[in-house]
């Protein structure tokens, strides 16, 4: 299977949950569809959703919840 690495579109802090007391958007192993929200990136106190541009199986995250990310950094792997 082809593994594709999706990069962070913008820099900031990566969140896997909509808020600290809520479950994660996606778990590794989940099947995701184009348009699904995979996480949030907080850039200068604004929260931007990370929206999947294509579907597949989310293989793994490269960035942990609340960790910093730069634009272009590997964010997650997708099995198409």
């Amino acid at each position, binding site marked *: 299977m082809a593994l594709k690495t999706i990069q962070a579109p*913008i820099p*900031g*802090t990566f969140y896997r949950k909509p808020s600290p007391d809520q479950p994660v958007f996606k778990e590794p192993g989940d099947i995701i569809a184009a348009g699904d929200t995979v996480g949030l990136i907080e*850039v*200068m*106190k604004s929260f931007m959703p990370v929206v999947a541009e294509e579907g597949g199986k989310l293989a793994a995250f490269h960035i942990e919840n*609340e*960790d*910093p990310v730069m634009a272009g950094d590997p964010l997650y792997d997708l099995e198409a």
Partner: protein
Amino acid sequence: MAIKALFIANRGEIAVRIIRAARELGIRTVQAVSAADRDMLAARLADAVVEVGPAHASKSYLDKTVMVQAAVASGADAVHPGYGFLSENADFAAMVEEAGLIFVGPRPQTIRAMGDKATARAMAAKAGVPTVPGSEGRVETPDEARRIARDIGYPVMIKASAGGGGRGIRVAATEAELDALIPQASSEAKAAFGDGGLYLERFIGRARHIEVQVLGDGDDVIHAYERECSLQRRRQKVWEEAPAACLAPAVREALCASAVRLARSVGYRGAGTLEYLYDPETGEFFFIEMNTRIQVEHPVTEMVTGIDLVRAMLEIAGGAKLAIAQSDVVLNGHAVEVRINAENPAKGFMPSPGVATALAVPEGAGIRFDTMLYEGYAVPPFYDSLLGKLIVWGESRAAAIVRLAAALEELHVEGLVTTAPLHRALARDAAVLAGDVHTRWLEGWLERGGLS
């Protein structure tokens, strides 16, 4: 005991401002930095730098234990919290003091009391400072609502007890409207917040945001007059002035005297700001809250009074008494500050972190630029978007705005998109020039395409 070494528990332009004030007093500076801030201007200027944790503020600048430990280990004898982060955290202030260090700010109990809106409101009432007339809690029945609204005076605002940030607000101009809106507002609040509870408050249609700067040494308190910060977007100030040109001299004196009464009643220590809403139609002012720290917009006050507020904070924290008598605080001219943020006004104020590849800063008489920028600096995406503050002074408000417009033409930040175009447009807008604005004016202006 005068401070010998100061730990700066903040970042950005305010850290730079604090380091400069400390230097003038011969105080050694130790700058806290997160892993993302090693290259910031304050880190370059400070005598020493201590890394306090990862980029995310909750693990660095907001971690009370880590910050206190770092301050102690650095050999500092005082901590300046700046604004934001832990600056109004009473527990942090107490921890600093328990560790045997000086907290540059008010006593922890003052921060705690003023940080609680209900307590602050009650203390204001006790000091004879007017607050926005309201229901003092939930309104239980339509009869009670009518009775309270009559006391408050129409129009009244109907607010959801569980709401916030302007959500769930309705305005009733008459008793008939109140009767119609209460059930509607209650069911909507129930649906939105799971709680149908409502309270009432006087509605001020064209409210202006006016705030009084105070300075206390724990015994005596003086004011350094007021600022107006009515130009706001999403409750964030974007343009600030001193003094508030809309106030009649008698109102100014009454307003500033009320702020001193309240600050004195709590034995205020350090620099603080009392925020008010001003109703230009009735000439009434109402206390909203007190900020127990230095504020972003403090330079406009410095420009019109000649007082160095940050230096005064450090002197007071070191045990000095107020060096200025109230009668020596004299207003001179007018000052305007605009916030230069890394945001794109043409794209809904989208954040725009990046590298400042080139920088040209306006200079000349009456111009000051307080900034965190230098050429080649990579503005990190993890913190707020304030890059700097352009502050101008003029002998009159009109002269200050002319100077502002000219200074904005000289300001060039390459590599980053900034809010400078917003301020260029505001500086030539007829309503801004006439001072005919209120706290909701800017958002309406933006919606009407003021920028295009």
